[in-house]
């Protein structure tokens, strides 16, 4: 199932399918690109950032950025 990264639940895993155009370069430097596997690690309350695990390290992303990343989530 495809969903926004910001909508993923704790512990859900998936593969990045698409990234909004102007965000692509922004997150590439943090190791997030189309085709990469990631896992939702933490969601901070009150529209706070999300933390995902990519390639055995953690990356935190603002909610605005997480909204622009579409992930194919494994059932």
């Amino acid at each position, binding site marked *: 199932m495809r969903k926004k990264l910001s909508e993923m639940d704790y512990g859900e895993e998936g593969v990045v399918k698409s990234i909004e155009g102007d965000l692509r370069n*922004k997150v590439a*430097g*943090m*190791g997030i690109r189309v085709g990469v596997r990631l896992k939702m690690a933490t969601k901070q309350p009150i529209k706070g950032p999300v933390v995902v695990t990519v*390639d055995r390290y953690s990356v935190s992303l603002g909610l605005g950025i997480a909204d622009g990343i579409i992930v194919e989530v494994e059932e």
Partner: protein
Amino acid sequence: MKILLMGNPNVGKSAIFNRLTGAKVIESNYPGTTVDYTRGYMRLDDEDVEVIDVPGTFSLEPKDVAEEVAVKILKENRDSVVVCIIDSTKLERGLYLALEIIEEGYPVVIALNMWDIAKEKSVWIDAKKLERVLGVPVVPTIAVSGEGIRELVSRIKEASPVDIERIVRNLEG
């Protein structure tokens, strides 16, 4: 010539900076910002060379003031050799920045720092192969213990600009 230490945040830039320069450092503030960076000097072939500990950045397209300062320092010091420090446990995003700097035409030396922690996490990097592909010196280092620092210094003079197309060809062949 200057030496710029660049890399993602928290990869050990300052630890390597301290190894290279000892304790004699100058704290500077970029005019108009509150982003501090440190400068110091090291001996290289009987010459005192300025070393700048550049604020950490993920890419050359700045997202915040610290990254803006990092990019500014890079652009204002065209005659520099960039020592690009990579956290060996986070190789991909470190290489992203390194490639951007190489693409800008700077001579680059890569330090694969936190080599010991990578080993602990069962991360193995073929540094020799990486060196062949990139065409720049690649040296495993452990800044906290000083391992690899001597080799890193000795290879600074080998750094020369690499055409990014050549790296692409090396990857294909």
